[in-house]
């Protein structure tokens, strides 16, 4: 006779899964439903109408494009920098102190940090004061195409530490014997880096990439506090668009944008996991 007993793992999974379904999947499904209605309450079915009008909206397309652009620049840059710093500090005597210093931005409140960045980057800010003193002249940091590099800088300042910690722990898990074998074979440190360190960090890199994407969305808080609802067009992100739609109660646009984003992120996740499988085999 077949064993029909429910496996114990099911009972462990159940409470978390129920909460996850109730608080995330169910309302997400609801917002997919709203995206094909003319309005959330007493709306009628309009098919892909909302999608068509969203894809024709310049504000949405700008937000989407800027978000893609920001991630395309900031995530790889942050990964490269945090790996570089991890390689530099791993053999240092004061490694823990350095790690702590780079982690500190994580605990600073966004509000006072937004004030700090404003003091630095505003038109009569400290940075322009220094540039003026050097005879270079003032630069409009926040209200020009330079706002994007500023946003990347703030993102890296905030998140480099955590990524670095992930890389440090990845470096830590590479067996010393690999390096000893390479040393015996006469490999240079540079060769060891390319043929041992980097290939063995592939799995960590995928993890760091996932965490960087998660955190790259979070930089919105600082940017929002720094530049408000309608910043310079080069840093008007998808989150600005969603935030403004939420504020103006435009639910059809908002739920449609959410649905499209779910699809994009699902594809992105599949890509990352495919990369992970390829690198680990």
């Amino acid at each position, binding site marked *: 006779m077949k064993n029909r007993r429910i*496996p*114990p*793992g*099911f*009972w*462990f*999974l159940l*409470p*978390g899964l129920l*909460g*996850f379904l109730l*608080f*995330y*999947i169910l*309302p997400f499904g*609801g*917002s997919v439903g709203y995206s094909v209605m003319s309005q959330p309450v007493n709306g009628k079915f309009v098919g892909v109408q909302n999608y068509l009008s969203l894809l024709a909206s310049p504000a949405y397309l700008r937000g989407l494009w800027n978000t893609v652009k920001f991630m395309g620049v900031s995530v790889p840059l942050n990964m490269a920098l945090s790996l570089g710093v991890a390689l*530099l*500090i791993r053999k*240092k005597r004061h490694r*823990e102190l350095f*790690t*702590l210093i*780079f*982690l*500190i931005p*994580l*605990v*600073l*409140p*966004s*509000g*006072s940090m937004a*004030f*700090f960045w404003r*003091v*630095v980057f*505003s038109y*009569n800010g400290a940075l322009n004061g220094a540039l003026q003193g050097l005879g270079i002249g003032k630069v409009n940091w926040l209200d020009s195409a330079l706002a994007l590099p500023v946003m990347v800088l703030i993102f890296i*300042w905030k998140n480099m*530490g955590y990524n670095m910690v*992930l890389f440090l722990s990845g470096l*830590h898990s590479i067996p010393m014997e690999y390096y000893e074998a390479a040393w015996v074979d006469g490999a240079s440190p540079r060769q060891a880096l390319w043929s041992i360190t980097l290939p063995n960090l592939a*799995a960590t890199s995928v*993890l760091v990439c*996932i965490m960087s994407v*998660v955190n790259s*969305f*979070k930089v919105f*808080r600082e940017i929002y506090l720094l530049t408000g609802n309608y910043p310079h067009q080069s840093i008007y992100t998808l989150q600005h668009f*969603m935030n403004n739609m*939420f504020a103006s109660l435009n*639910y059809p646009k*908002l*739920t449609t944008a*959410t649905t499209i*984003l779910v699809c994009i*992120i699902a594809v992105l996740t599949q890509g990352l*996991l495919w990369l*992970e499988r390829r690198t680990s085999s």
Partner: protein
Amino acid sequence: MNTTAFGNRKNLVSTVLLVCLGLLFLLPLAVTLSGSFMSEGEITLNYTTSLSAFDKLDGLTERFAGLRLIPSPVTLKQYATVLINQPAFLLLMFNSIKIALPVTLGSLIISMATAYGFTIWNWRYKEALFIVYIVVMLMPLQAVLVPNYIIADALGIQESYLAIILPGIFSPFGVFLMRQSMKALPTAYFEAARIDGAGPMRIFFSLVIPQMKSAIAALCMLQFIEYWNLVEQAVIFIKDYTKEPLSVYLSRIAEGRVGLIFAASCVFLFLPFWFLLLGQKDLEKGIELSGVK
């Protein structure tokens, strides 16, 4: 001989580089900390960009904000206001605790159990479900807020902390982190325990949890920091000013009370900073590297 000299020089260069980078990273903290010991007048003098009558007499045509790191004179007035004269600050901080603590503990319990379920129960759609968890984890907060709002409305818990706490407890991040760490546990160990007759409950409590101390510390720290600093959720759900967390108050920094905000920020960041000091080592050990899938 030559190579060691070269190695030493390289070492020195990298140390100098790191120290410079470290100082740059510390600058915002240093400005906040020193600002908290300045009087409001000194702060206004440092950060204002509008010209005073004296500036005009001096022939200045523009003024820049300056980052001054040494307060003169040092004053504890801002701290006295935050800690003693205006009990509202402590009240708001208590509100922050009332949100961050339940989320941290709740998500720890739920994530551990769920991740353990994922680990020991092999069924057909397990990996597909886990991908759903990852997708939701990657969604930006602005996209998750609408679902949160819909469900809070349906349950009648909007304007209560529960509208923030419950989604926080069931957030996919904890499950992701815990499952990554559980993958690294030696399976042979558990096989042996099972052969000896230990049930899944027993294995969970006496084998899995003790082995995952670092991961548990890392999760608690990250969740606590995340919800200690929350802004958006509270702005949407909490309408009553006396109920909002301190992080929201700090985000409304305005001229005229900058010093106060600086001092409040220092008090505010003390708790997460202390956790960071305690758990820094666990953060490194707590995330596992056996890969995502």
